[in-house]
């Protein structure tokens, strides 16, 4: 089931070094790219159907097409290597094992959008990864793939690595821009959208590492070759991360569209220790949980996930076995989102803290049904009333646990509340 498109060079020794990478095709698309018109490159990427791999799944080529023409302002590319969504662990493989594919992708994208300055935003915790990335960038400069004349062509490109310092919210595109500009990672209101006014007020494209690293394959082999993988609306491959209660957790590159349960069993060895499956988080902690029964009809693509009222997200699959206490799990999640809230807007800042205190109260044994219902109501009160979707990233999954595992919450409060016996 596994494929090797993005991960083609991952098992090759020293493929992170430019000499070896080039032997295996790194930077070989550049002559072709520079011979094309930038708008044709955009068209090609549009035709490939490549969707953003950060979690939102927005078509990359379409996003590039939003850039206004003739503003006179420089265009910026920001590469999102924040990778802080719990259960997501894919981009760092690219940074460490095949950074040149990303650098090649940066060159392709920059040429297409007319940008000469790229900022790679990498989370602060990625220490080994940032060293590997900077080493690759230095090599690229030395060999003339970055700098004043990219690969000998009349195109200037500078790439700067900007380290974050411990904020999940900086994975949100406008918060990322704020961080590059030296401020707290507090998301901006949209409109204006970054394509119009992004970094330093200039047109900016923000793409995930994996999205950018997917570009060399598309240029080299064409849109159809990319669409040969995956489904019609969700083409291509993805670096899926499977973690939690499985026998073989790890990162696996798969085409989109495979059945979820089959992937868990055949690729990740199934639920560990012979235990029973209780639930699956399909695409990162922000995605609503799936019950085993529901998961039977789920395939790993954007459409199927949407039909099942969850999301493809970042492709971070977490398997939950029968021993998982869902109430504790929800506390773990709320704790995360509360800790990571930027604090800018009222519902998230005050609301997530309230939710955390309520679930702690429930876990401590002092909770009542009122608290369970309040927790459920707060999910609705907070969601979509905020500047960014971090609050929704908390409330959407929490709501799904409260709805699908309500009996577990009720069990914690039953002894305190005689009316709980009447609750569903």
């Amino acid at each position, binding site marked *: 089931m596994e494929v090797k498109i993005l991960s083609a060079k991952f098992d090759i020794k020293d493929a992170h070094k430019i000499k070896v990478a080039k032997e295996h095709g790194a930077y070989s698309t550049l002559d072709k790219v520079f011979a094309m018109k930038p708008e044709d490159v955009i068209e090609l990427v549009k035709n490939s159907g490549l969707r953003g791999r950060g979690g939102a799944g927005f078509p990359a080529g379409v996003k590039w097409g939003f850039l206004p023409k003739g503003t006179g302002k420089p265009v910026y590319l920001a590469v999102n290597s924040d990778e802080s969504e*719990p259960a997501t662990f894919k981009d760092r493989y690219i940074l460490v094992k095949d950074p040149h594919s990303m650098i090649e992708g940066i060159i392709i994208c920059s040429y297409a959008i007319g940008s000469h300055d790229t900022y790679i935003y990498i989370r602060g915790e990625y*220490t080994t990864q940032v060293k590997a990335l900077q080493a690759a960038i230095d090599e690229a400069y030395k060999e003339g793939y970055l700098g004043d004349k990219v690969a000998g062509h009349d195109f200037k490109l500078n790439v700067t690595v*900007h380290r*974050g*310092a411990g904020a999940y919210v900086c994975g949100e595109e406008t918060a990322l821009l704020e961080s590059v500009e030296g401020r707290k*990672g507090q998301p901006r209101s949209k409109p204006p959208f970054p394509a119009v006014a992004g970094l330093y007020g200039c047109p900016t494209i923000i793409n995930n590492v994996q999205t950018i690293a997917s570009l060399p394959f598309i240029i080299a082999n064409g849109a159809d070759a990319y669409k040969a993988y995956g489904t019609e609306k969700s083409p291509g491959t993805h670096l899926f991360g499977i973690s939690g209660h499985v026998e073989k*957790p790890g990162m696996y590159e798969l085409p989109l569209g495979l059945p979820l349960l089959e992937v868990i069993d055949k690729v990740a060895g199934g639920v560990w220790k012979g235990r029973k499956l209780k639930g699956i988080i399909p695409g990162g902690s922000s995605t609503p949980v799936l019950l085993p029964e529901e998961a039977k009809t789920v395939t790993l693509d954007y459409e199927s996930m949407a039909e099942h009222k969850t999301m493809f997200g970042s492709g971070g699959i*977490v398997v939950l076995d029968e021993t*998982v206490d869902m109430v504790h799990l929800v506390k773990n999640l709320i*704790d995360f989102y509360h800790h990571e809230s930027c604090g800018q807007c009222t519902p998230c800042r005050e609301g997530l803290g309230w939710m955390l205190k309520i679930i702690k109260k429930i876990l401590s044994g002092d909770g009542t049904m009122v608290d369970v219902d309040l927790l459920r109501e707060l999910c609705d009160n907070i969601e979509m009333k905020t500047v960014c979707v971090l609050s929704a990233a908390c409330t959407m999954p929490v709501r799904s646990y409260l709805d699908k595992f309500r009996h577990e919450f009720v069990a914690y409060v039953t002894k305190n509340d005689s009316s709980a016996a009447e609750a569903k």
Partner: protein
Amino acid sequence: MSDRSQLISTGTPFQFDKERDAEFERLVKRYPTRESMILPALWLTQEQEGWISQEAMAYIADRIGTYASKVYEAATFYTMYHLHPMGKNHICVCRTLSCWLRGKQEIVDYLKDEIGIKPGQISDDGKFSLEEVECLGHCGTAPVVQVNGEFHENMDVDKLKSLLATLK
């Protein structure tokens, strides 16, 4: 998260050493605004001193030419910046989702029993400090621990024992 507003004053003015000074000057050219240097400057300070003092923040503000309040904002917002001296070996245990599912609590409990510190504390001999952090992006090899910036994956109590023995 808790409140990070209490800054520590060393009582002496701060400045970059030669290496950090050169790096600052190299980096400042790569951004169109000097304010973009706030995060890189805070990192340079932490590399140099291991933590960021009140004087260092004032120095950064003046060197960049921005308000000290802006440096204060960034330093308190981003939790990887240490605002007080840490232990010689800083241990970060991931506490989120997959690591929680695969046994991070055993590691935290072991550290409490062995070294006697809870998350947020520094050992009496100053050798270790412990922090519980959010998802480190190594979920496939959970539980994961980061010590002095290095990742240690598939951790269990035994591996942790060996690791601690190697730390000075």
